[in-house]
């Protein structure tokens, strides 16, 4: 009887313990395991994301592309990492001042360039054209820029620091207008103003120089776009009397790229260019064989010239060789490119190679001639044409020896 009496409460107690186990402890353990699994999954997911993120690698560079005659600045992105990168944004910054550079591509100020649907697979490269709109801005002159490219995973890739000025000169202001002031008076302030008339743009638009010596000359280079400009010279704030009728000057770039204000207004006159033929006096040739020698032709601007001359035209057809039958002599001349020559200065204009074939033994005379108007130039200040008005020749003795 005692056994059966205690069995009832033991059974009830056991049932309650089991109920507690199944309704609270086991669900709690399951919940704990589940929570741990969720956290582990999230942690693992983050670890994979961080690994992917740190595996991203991209090179950022600014390049110049040429399509026909049109040049453009583009950002060149190369994915040199093992995973695909989605660039989402480009910042253009002033690296020296740690500031955003304005990008007025869409009219208003946007601090960055938003990229859409750009995907760079491993090893792939792409160019971003949008930077061109932002960079073609005079505000970027004298700036050291840096590009920051932000990826979708939150990595930031930067370019090298790039001094943009030289690139902008080429793109924003493709033409260079030179303004020369000749014969300034000591102690006076001279101001050159370049004012666009219409759509042109110039940089700088104003330049001031104080003459520190009498008859000082100065030349200013102004970057411009194509267009019409009014170029004015002011002496101590007013137009100088010496230039009445010549100041201001209205010019059209690129038809005119030089303006000269000569305060003494010297009457320039062209002087003949002198030609110097540098050739051997005597050339020895073996009978029946060929011999080649060089003749160098120099041009000299006389001391009496009042301005430098830019040699622009050299006519190789103006070279003549007489004295030998045409079958025994031939020549070819290579002219040098355009260059500027100053008064009393001498420079080489062309080199001719002469080939002579030896005939019967003896002595013959070859005359090397430079005809008039073979070498021509333009006066830098006056625009006058300078040339060799005279004919120049040089005798060369050809001595044929027995074989």
């Amino acid at each position: 009887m005692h056994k059966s009496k205690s069995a009832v409460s033991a059974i009830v107690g056991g049932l309650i313990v089991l109920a507690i186990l199944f309704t609270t402890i086991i669900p709690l353990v399951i919940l704990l395991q589940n929570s741990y699994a969720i956290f582990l999954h999230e942690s693992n997911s983050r670890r994979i994301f961080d690994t992917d993120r740190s595996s991203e690698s991209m090179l950022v560079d600014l390049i110049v592309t040429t399509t026909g005659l049109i040049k453009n600045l583009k950002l060149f992105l190369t994915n040199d990492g093992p995973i695909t990168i989605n660039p989402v944004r480009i910042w253009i910054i002033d690296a020296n001042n740690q500031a955003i550079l304005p990008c007025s591509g869409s009219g208003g100020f946007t601090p960055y360039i938003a990229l859409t649907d750009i995907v760079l697979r491993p090893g792939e490269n792409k160019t971003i054209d949008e930077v061109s709109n932002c960079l073609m801005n005079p505000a970027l002159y004298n700036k050291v820029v840096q590009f920051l490219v932000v990826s979708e995973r939150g990595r930031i890739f930067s370019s090298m620091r790039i001094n943009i000025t030289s690139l902008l000169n080429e793109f924003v202001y493709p033409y260079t207008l030179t303004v020369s002031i000749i014969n300034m008076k000591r102690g006076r302030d001279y101001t050159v103003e370049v004012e666009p008339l219409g759509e042109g743009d110039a940089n700088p638009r104003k330049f001031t120089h104080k003459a520190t010596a009498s008859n000082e000359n100065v030349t200013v280079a102004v970057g411009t776009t194509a267009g019409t400009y009014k170029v004015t010279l002011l002496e101590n704030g007013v137009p100088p009397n010496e230039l009445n009728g010549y100041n201001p000057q209205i010019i059209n770039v690129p038809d005119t790229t030089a303006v000269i204000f000569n305060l003494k207004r010297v009457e320039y006159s062209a002087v003949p260019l002198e030609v110097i033929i540098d050739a051997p006096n005597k050339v020895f040739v073996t009978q029946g064989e060929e011999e080649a020698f060089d003749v160098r032709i120099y041009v000299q601007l006389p001391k009496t010239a009042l301005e430098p001359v830019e040699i622009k035209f050299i006519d190789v057809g103006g070279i003549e060789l007489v004295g030998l039958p045409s079958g025994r002599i031939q020549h070819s001349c290579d002219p040098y490119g355009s260059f500027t020559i100053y008064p009393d200065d001498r420079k080489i204009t062309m080199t001719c190679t002469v080939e002579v074939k030896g005939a019967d033994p003896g002595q013959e005379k070859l005359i090397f001639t430079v005809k008039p108007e073979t070498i021509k130039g333009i006066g830098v200040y006056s625009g006058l044409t300078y040339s060799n008005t005279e004919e120049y020749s040089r005798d060369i003795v050809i001595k044929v020896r027995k074989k």
Partner: protein
Amino acid sequence: MRLAKLAVSYLISVAIMTAVTIALGLFLWGIIGGWAGVSALDIIEETNKGVAQQRSLLIVEFVDLQRKIVWVSNPGKVDLILLSCIVYPKGSSPPSRDFIELAKAEASMNAPLELDSSKCIFPSSLDPSRPYIVEIYAIASTIYNPSNIMENIQWAILVRSDA
């Protein structure tokens, strides 16, 4: 008679024993059930906070020292509430910070969030040639309690970046 007396006491004693066992069992069940419920809520809450922190990510894209603007973005999986932003010279100790709700950074890389000098504390004078540090505290919006900002501050993330 004696047998009848014994029978009554047996039934009574079984009933009493059973009742006591049931009462104690239910009491124990209640206690354990309550404890388990509270523990389960704690586990869920802690897991949520841990997950929220794992999902939190904030980057400083650029600091414009001239205009005094910090641009940040959120490449993570959860919206973030920015609680503090300070910029100070590298090498010096950071200034004291206050935790207030500055802005919400959505979990998207579509556009960066701009924090100007009204939201971010900058030094009174800035020299762009010197290096600076930007420090931002942010907390996942899922565990942020606007009525008690400091409630889950230990689950916030601290972003420290060179400026």
